[in-house]
């Protein structure tokens, strides 16, 4: 038991962990900042520096000072580090400023005037689609996908079915990692540039710096500092922040620190994409879906960032765990003049799943069926193929999953009890119960893992310990502990004999980014394979007997290294046999495997104040092998509460393209008193992929809570709700209309 506790836990509890802003530096560090656009769209005509200030004390960087390419290396080549003349969103960086004294830096910033000719901004999905203003390349569309099976139109026009059509919306959401984005950049003519920072994906930053600074790869080094949460918010954004700090370091020849305060972090960093989903579905009298059309649109913000892949995941997840012969999904990510939206746990899936799971409850209400009945006639099962052509070969049994949740939550009895409770008109509090059935694919979408071709190294050390080298980052999810467990189990070693190498690109190979519910399943498997090979090597060379004792490993390693230079094993990702995806037709096995889940929420709605409280929550998922119960539960519980926040509290309020509630006073996330007891239930049916069969779970818990909670609210009050966040005023409107 003791061995499975979080490795770095005690240091964190004692406050000893040094996050980026806690670290001390051998040389003077100066402070950097970006001067940003005060408008959402316009043309920059001039930058004026007040002559009252002695600017010689400052380091100033403009686009002309960029030695390489002024574009953040990502999917498209459109996102500049510093705006050149066109300004495309509020807060867009225009120039960089650094000074040894923070107060002087602020004073300097106040004496720079930007001359901008404003242009009409595009601020909604509808404005973008109208293309009255073209704000991105030749059109306003970053990317579109279509999934098509059968002939939906002929079913709709047959007259044999009842047809339901509805639009759903989800809002932007801030990741709100407790530690804001921050980096320190150093520059040395010999060594090149080094970035220390709070980040999820060191090799993303590594590639970005090489392109920006026109440096050879060996002149760029990225070191992850202990990272106070990410949730996707430190996937793409650190590349831009690191770029700013690196440019200032290069020009000032000094170490440059850039730590955002909360207001800047919330105002300018990426958010979850707002979405609009239109669903049209045809049903028989039992609720069975005869045909369905889904139009799924994301507001990508001003630049393409990761919108293309967020869209893809959203599109592939939107029809959920259901089977139908006639399906059409049209997905599109469009440009607006909001700050770019990016990765956030769930990555498009929470948005489209919200729409689908709400729609099924709406259909149930219209057909006078229960939400349970409508789902039971539509579930996909083993052997059937999804609308994008993936045949599920593992046990997919949503009837069993629903039965488990209903039994654990006493669903049917509670439903009746709540109905009785709600019948009393003198009581303004109404109780409701609702659920969502959904899935989440593990790892990168489609061929993504093939392109990443992730690598991992395990090396035996002179002190007899075994060291794991991977670029996967510890961001609170417990990666260090999981990798330790995997190696310890494979080699039969005590945990303290396993060392996790610092995540430093000059040391560790590229294991791909720490995103997409992939670290345990994909990289963990590489770690396991490497550990097994290392053990086999020691046995084959007779340094270990095949029936060795754990205490003998250290000695065997020392003896081996006395006779050999090194004992190092490299492993690289290989696509599992039988898994195939075709990029051209956008079809096949979108993910090697999925986590299958049913989430259920109970709520109380005060019909006087329109406030909703989630009073109980059940989260059931089939996740293959659970590597570490406490850590896995922690992932689910945390994700559930972020999902509740998305449903009921978290409202990114924009005005003229600017987030105006960019602080924790007005942007509300759930606290300990807003959080219900959460019962986490794991099933471990399918163990075909991942180390001992562990599937990804990081993002899954973000998908189900919002539809489960809103379905419960609708169950309580009887009025339909089609958008989140559902604030009290939104519920009031819904109930009064």
């Amino acid at each position: 038991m003791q061995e499975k506790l979080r490795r770095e836990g005690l240091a964190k509890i004692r406050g000893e962990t040094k996050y980026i802003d806690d670290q001390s530096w051998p040389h003077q560090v100066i402070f950097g900042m970006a001067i940003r656009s005060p408008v959402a769209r316009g043309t920059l005509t001039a930058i004026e520096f007040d002559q009252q200030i002695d600017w010689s004390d400052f380091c100033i960087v403009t686009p002309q000072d960029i030695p390489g390419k002024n574009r953040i290396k990502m999917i498209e080549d459109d996102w500049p580090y510093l705006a050149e003349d066109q300004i495309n969103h509020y807060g867009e960086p225009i120039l960089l400023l650094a000074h040894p004294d923070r107060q002087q830096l602020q004073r300097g910033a106040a004496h720079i005037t930007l001359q901008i000719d404003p242009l009409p901004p595009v601020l909604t999905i509808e404005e973008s689609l109208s293309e009255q203003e073209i704000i991105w390349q030749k059109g306003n569309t970053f990317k579109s996908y279509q999934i098509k099976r059968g002939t939906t139109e002929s079913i709709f026009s047959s007259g044999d079915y009842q047809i339901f059509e509805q639009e759903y919306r989800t809002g932007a959401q801030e990741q709100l990692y407790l530690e804001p984005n921050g980096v320190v950049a150093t520059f040395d003519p010999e060594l090149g540039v080094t970035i220390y920072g709070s980040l999820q994906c060191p090799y993303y930053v590594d590639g970005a710096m090489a392109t920006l600074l026109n440096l050879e790869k060996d002149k760029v080094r990225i070191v992850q500092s202990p990272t106070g949460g990410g949730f996707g918010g430190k996937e793409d954004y650190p590349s831009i922040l690191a770029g700013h700090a690196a440019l200032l370091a290069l020009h000032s020849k000094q170490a440059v620190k850039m730590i955002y305060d909360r207001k800047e972090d919330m105002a300018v960093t990426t958010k979850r994409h707002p979405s609009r989903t239109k669903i049209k579905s045809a049903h028989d009298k039992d609720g069975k879906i005869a045909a369905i059309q889904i139009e799924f649109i994301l507001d990508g913000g001003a630049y393409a960032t990761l919108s293309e892949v967020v869209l893809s995941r959203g599109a592939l997840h939107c029809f959920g765990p259901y089977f139908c012969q006639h399906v059409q999904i049209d997905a599109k990510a469009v440009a607006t003049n909001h700050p770019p939206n990016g990765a956030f746990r769930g990555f498009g899936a929470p948005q489209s799943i919200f729409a689908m799971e709400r729609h099924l409850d709406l259909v149930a209400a219209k057909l006078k069926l229960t939400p349970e009945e409508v789902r039971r006639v539509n579930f996909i099962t083993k052997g059937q193929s999804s609308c994008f052509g993936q045949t599920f070969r593992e046990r997919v049994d949503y009837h069993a999953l629903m039965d488990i949740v209903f039994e654990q939550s006493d669903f049917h009895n509670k439903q009746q009890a709540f109905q009785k409770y709600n019948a009393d008109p003198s009581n303004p509090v109404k109780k409701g119960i609702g659920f969502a059935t959904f899935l989440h694919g593990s790892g990168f979408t489609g061929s993504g893992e093939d392109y990443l071709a992730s690598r991992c190294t395990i090396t035996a050390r002179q002190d007899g310990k075994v060291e794991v080298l991977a670029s996967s980052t510890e961001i609170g999810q417990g990666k260090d502990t999981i990798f330790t467990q995997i190696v310890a189990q494979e080699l039969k070693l005590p945990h303290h004999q396993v060392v996790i190498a610092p995540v430093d690109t000059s040391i560790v190979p590229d294991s791909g980014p720490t995103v997409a519910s992939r670290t345990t399943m994909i990289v963990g498997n590489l770690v396991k394979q490497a550990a097994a090979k290392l053990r086999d090597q020691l046995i084959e060379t007779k340094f270990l007997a095949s029936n060795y004792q754990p205490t003998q490993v250290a000695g065997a390693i020392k003896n081996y290294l006395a006779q050999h230079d090194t004992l190092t094993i490299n492993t690289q990702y290989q696509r599992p046999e039988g898994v195939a995806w075709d990029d051209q037709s956008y079809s096949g096995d979108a993910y090697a495997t999925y986590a299958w889940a049913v989430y259920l929420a109970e709520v109380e709605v005060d019909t006087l104040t329109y406030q909703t409280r989630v009073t109980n929550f059940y989260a059931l998922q089939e996740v293959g092998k659970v590597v570490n119960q406490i850590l896995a539960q922690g992932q689910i519980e945390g994700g559930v509460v972020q999902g509740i926040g998305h449903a009921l509290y978290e409202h990114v309020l924009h005005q003229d393209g600017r987030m105006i509630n960019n602080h924790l006073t007005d942007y509300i996330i759930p606290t300990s008193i807003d959080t219900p007891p959460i019962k986490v239930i794991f099933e471990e049916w399918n163990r075909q992929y991942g180390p001992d069969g562990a599937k990804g779970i990081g993002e899954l818990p973000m998908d189900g809570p919002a539809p489960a909670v809103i379905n419960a609210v609708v169950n309580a009050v009887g009025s339909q709700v089609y958008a989140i966040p559902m604030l009290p005023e939104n519920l009031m409107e819904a109930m009064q209309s």
Partner: protein
Amino acid sequence: MEFNNHITITLTINGEQQQVSVPPMARLLDIIRNKLELTGTKEGCGAGECGACAVLLDGKMVNSCLIPAIQANGSSVYTIEGLAQKEEFNCLEHSFHKKGGTQCGFCTPGMLIASYQLIKDKSSPNREEIRQAMAGNLCRCTGHQKIIDSVADAIEQLTKSPEGQ
């Protein structure tokens, strides 16, 4: 230059008297982090909303980002580093570790300060009282459940053995 004006603040930090010179607008948090280099106290929001900067000021939990330096003059302050030396901390530390009460760790020192304050104030708080006591500290990773579990576990251990050992 106006920026060079400094004031001298005397305070007892973790039981040791210290004198620091800071700009007049400095916050207690700035003294703790920048002058005394006690970095266990974090800045999460700078607006008194998240509790990551919580410390004990004359025995009461405060958000140190809201306390002007001048107000801390003559006071006694305990940060996580000082608390970690106290005997009662052992039990909390053990429970947070065992029950999964920390993930990314950034909110954790503040959580420990809040739970320490709670066990000092109340002998056997129930789960609801624990939730109330921790409501001023935001956590984005855990969904709060394992933090509440940790505090409840520590209280159970302390009730079994008043010395907390």
